[in-house]
C-alpha cells in the first residue's frame, strides 16, 4: 500500500522477534494508562514516600542533620527490617490503589468491544496476551515497591558501611520476594476480576470488595465459629503474615490476630488464590466463548 497510490501491497519486510510481541501490549498498555492525567499524577505521588524514606535514612546517618532537626540520637538504628517492612507496607497500599485503578481497565476495554478476538487472531497466544497485560502492572508496581526499596537498602548500606550490607543481605532477598509475591497476587486478581465481570467500574469495585469486604466476612466467620481460620480469606492479612516471616519479625512482635493462622496456611491461601485466578483466566480469556448447553 502507499498513500499516494492507494493500492494494496503485501508486506515482505523484516518482522520483530516472536518472543517480543507481548512487549507491544505492555508498551501500549502503559501509554494508555498515562494518557490519563489523574493516573499520572497519582503515580508520581506514589514516589513521595520513597523521597521521604531517603531523607529519613540520610538524617539517621548524619549528625549535622540530626543536630539541625534537634532529633538527638533517637533515629539511630531505626533503619532496620521494621523500617523496610513498614515502607513496603505503605507502598503496597498505594500500589493497590494504582492496580485497582489501572489494572481492570486494561482488560475490560478489550472485552467491551470484542477486540480480544483481534489480539488472538495475531501471532500471540493467550498466555502472551496475559503476560503483556500483567507486565504493565508488574512494571508500575515494581517501580514503586521493590526497586526504590532496594535503592534505599543500598543507600543505607553505603551510609552504614560494607559490614552492614553483608550482615543484612538476606533483607534484599526478602524485599524482592515479598514484593514479587504481592505484585503477582494483585496483578492476577486484577486480571481475573476484569475478565470475569468485563466492566471496569464493577471490576474495580469487586477488587476493592475482595480486599476490604472479604476480611469483614472473615471476621464474621471467626466470631461465629470461634476460630481464626476466617482470616484465610483476608488476603491482606495473609500477605502480611508471609511478609513478617520474610522480614524475620519475631513471633512475639506479631499482632494477636496473626497468631491464629499458621504460616503454611497463609502460603496455601495465597497459592489457592493464584490457582483460582489462573482457572478463571483460562476459562474466560478466550477469543470466542462457547455456550455449553
Amino acid at each position, binding site marked *: 500500500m502507499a498513500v499516494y497510490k492507494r493500492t494494496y501491497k503485501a508486506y515482505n*519486510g523484516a518482522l520483530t522477534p516472536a518472543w517480543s510481541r507481548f512487549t507491544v501490549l505492555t508498551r501500549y498498555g502503559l501509554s494508555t494508562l498515562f494518557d490519563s492525567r489523574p493516573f499520572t499524577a497519582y503515580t508520581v505521588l506514589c514516589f513521595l514516600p520513597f523521597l521521604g524514606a531517603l531523607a529519613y535514612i540520610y538524617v539517621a546517618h548524619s549528625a549535622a542533620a540530626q543536630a539541625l532537626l534537634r532529633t538527638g540520637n533517637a533515629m539511630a538504628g531505626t533503619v532496620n527490617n521494621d523500617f523496610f517492612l513498614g515502607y513496603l507496607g505503605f507502598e503496597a497500599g498505594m500500589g493497590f490503589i494504582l492496580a485497582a485503578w489501572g489494572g481492570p481497565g486494561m482488560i475490560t476495554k478489550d472485552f467491551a468491544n470484542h477486540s480480544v478476538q483481534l489480539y488472538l487472531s495475531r501471532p500471540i497466544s493467550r498466555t502472551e496476551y496475559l503476560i503483556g497485560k500483567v507486565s504493565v502492572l508488574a512494571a508500575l508496581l515494581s517501580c514503586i515497591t521493590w526497586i526504590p526499596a532496594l535503592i534505599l537498602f543500598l543507600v543505607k548500606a553505603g551510609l552504614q558501611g560494607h559490614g552492614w550490607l553483608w550482615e543484612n543481605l538476606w533483607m534484599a532477598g526478602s524485599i524482592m520476594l515479598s514484593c514479587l509475591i504481592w505484585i503477582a497476587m494483585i496483578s492476577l486478581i486484577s486480571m481475573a476480576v476484569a475478565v470475569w465481570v468485563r466492566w471496569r467500574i464493577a471490576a474495580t469495585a469487586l477488587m476493592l470488595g475482595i480486599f476490604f469486604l472479604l476480611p469483614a466476612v472473615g471476621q464474621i466467620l471467626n466470631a461465629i465459629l470461634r476460630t481464626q481460620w476466617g482470616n484465610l480469606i483476608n488476603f491482606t492479612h495473609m500477605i502480611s503474615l508471609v511478609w513478617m516471616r520474610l522480614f524475620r519479625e519475631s513471633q512475639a512482635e506479631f499482632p494477636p490476630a496473626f497468631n491464629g493462622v499458621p504460616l503454611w496456611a497463609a502460603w496455601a491461601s495465597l497459592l489457592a488464590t493464584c490457582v483460582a485466578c489462573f482457572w478463571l483466566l483460562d476459562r474466560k480469556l478466550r477469543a470466542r466463548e462457547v455456550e455449553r448447553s
Partner: protein
Amino acid sequence: MSAIIEMQNLTVRLGNRIILNQLNGALSGRCIGLLGPNGSGKSTLINTLLGFYEPISGAARILGKEVKSNLRELRAMIGYMPESDAFIADMTGVRFVRYMAELSGLPRGEAMERAHEAFFYVGLGEARYRKLGTYSLGMKQLAKLAQAIAHGPKLVLLDEPTNGLDPEARIRMLQLVREIRDTGEVSVLISSHLLRDIEECCDQVLILKEGRIAALCNLEEERKANLKFLELEVTQGNGFLESVRGLGCECASFGAGRVRIILPDNIDLRQIYRTASEHEVQIRRMNYRRDTLEDIFLKAMAGTSQAASAQQGSTNGSL
C-alpha cells in the same frame, strides 16, 4: 492453482453440538465465498481456521501448513475481519491499526506507515485521528478491514463484511474486496449469507448447510458455462426454432416468444442473429443466464447428499 485452504474430515463440536461435520474439500480461488444460512457453521469454520476452536477430529491446512501445528506462523500470514464490532473505543483509528500491525510482527516505523496507508486505502484517511468509538457503523467496518490488511497478509478472512452497511458503503466495501483480490498478492475468504456479495467478488464458493458442505464449486467456470445459455424473447417466426436446431443448438420454446438456447462451442452468436434475420424474426430481448449462484444455492439447500457431492472436489461436476 494450489489450494489455499484444505479440509480433511474437519469436525468441530461446541458444547454438545457438532457445528462442523466431516468437512472435506480444497479451496483454491483467489476470492472464496463462504455461503450458508444463519447457523450453518460459516463463522465457526473461520474461527477454526484461526485456531480459536480445536477440531475434535480431522484437520485443516492453510497455504499448505496444518493449522494446529503452525498456528503462530499462519496467524502472521492471515488478516481477520470479524463479524461483530471489534475495536478499542478510546483509541484513534490509526493508533489502533498500528497497534494491531505491531502485534502481527511489524516494526514500529513500518507499522505506523502501513497503518496510515491502510486508512487511506479504505477511504478513512481524513478520520484516522478520530477515536474509534465515534465512528459510524460503516466506518467501523472499514477500520476493521484496515486492521485486517495493514500487516500485508497472504490470506484475508472477512466475516460478513457488508453487515449493517448502507447500499453505498456496501458497494465501496465490495469494491475494496475486489481490488484486494485483483492485486494477486492476497487470497480472500468472505463469509456471507448474501448471495449478491459473493457473486460480485468470488470465483469459488463453498456452501455450508447444518455444518456440512452442501456445495463447493467454481463460479468462474459456471459463468463461462452460462455464456452458452441464452434466453431470448422474439416475435413469432415460422421455422426459426427449427433452423436454430439445424445449427446444432438445443432450444426450447416457452410460449409468448420466449426461447432458451444452449450454444455449442462451435456456434457463434452472430449465426443466431443471421438465422433470425433470414426468418424475419425480431429479437426483442436477449440475456445470458445470470442466476447462477442462486440456482446453485437453492439446489444445495434442497439437496441431501451434500457430503458426497462435496468430496468430488472443486469442480462444477460436484454439483
